[in-house]
């Protein structure tokens, strides 16, 4: 049973993937699993422990299940200010 999502990429992740967002269909069980898929597909080196994850503009937990139609962002370490 696959789920349709939009993925958002920022900063060096955006440069790595070459896109600011992409639509995916995934069978990943949770957000951690989803990140594993994306890491493999785009050759992203960041270990998951260094990132945070957000769903629809709110921080989420890696163990959260996927929600169809949601917007998922992997947040690399921030450097504002």
């Amino acid at each position, binding site marked *: 049973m696959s789920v349709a999502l939009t993925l*958002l990429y*920022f*900063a*060096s992740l*955006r*440069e790595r993937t070459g896109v600011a967002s992409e639509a995916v269909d995934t069978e990943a069980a949770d957000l951690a699993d989803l990140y594993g898929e994306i890491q493999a597909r785009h050759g992203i080196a960041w270990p998951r*422990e*260094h990132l945070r994850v*957000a769903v629809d*503009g*709110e*921080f989420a937990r890696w163990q959260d299940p996927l929600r169809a139609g949601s917007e998922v*962002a992997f*947040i*690399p*370490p*921030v*450097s*504002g*200010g």
Partner: protein
Amino acid sequence: MPRFLLSAEPLDVAALGAGLRDPRAGGHATFEGWVRDHHAGRAVDGLDYEAYGALAEREGERIVAEAMERFDVLAACCAHRVGALAIGDLAVWVGVSAAHRGAAFDACRYIIDEVKQRVPIWKREHYREGDADWLHPVVDGP
């Protein structure tokens, strides 16, 4: 009125400060983050800020709300630039008004410290030697 804002235009410090006036306030602390000409031993020419807008605004609001709960302050606000900035440009502004100065300083520092650690904004530095890099400082867990 939002207490955290992202702006693609230069920040209007006078207007931001005016929004925090209160006849009960005796102290007003501010912090300005300026683009400086060096980082980690390298000469810097300028930088770009990119934000995850929706989440940055929520997390920024949350930080200002936390500061207002923790410290005895009357008003607080933070604004952060996005886009291309030159050396000396104002990147971030924090202002806090309080009856007494200790709380104003403490809340101001809390806000800038937390914003730097938690708000999804990223900096790409342009070095004088021609290359550029996104900064992703890794903080030790959890």
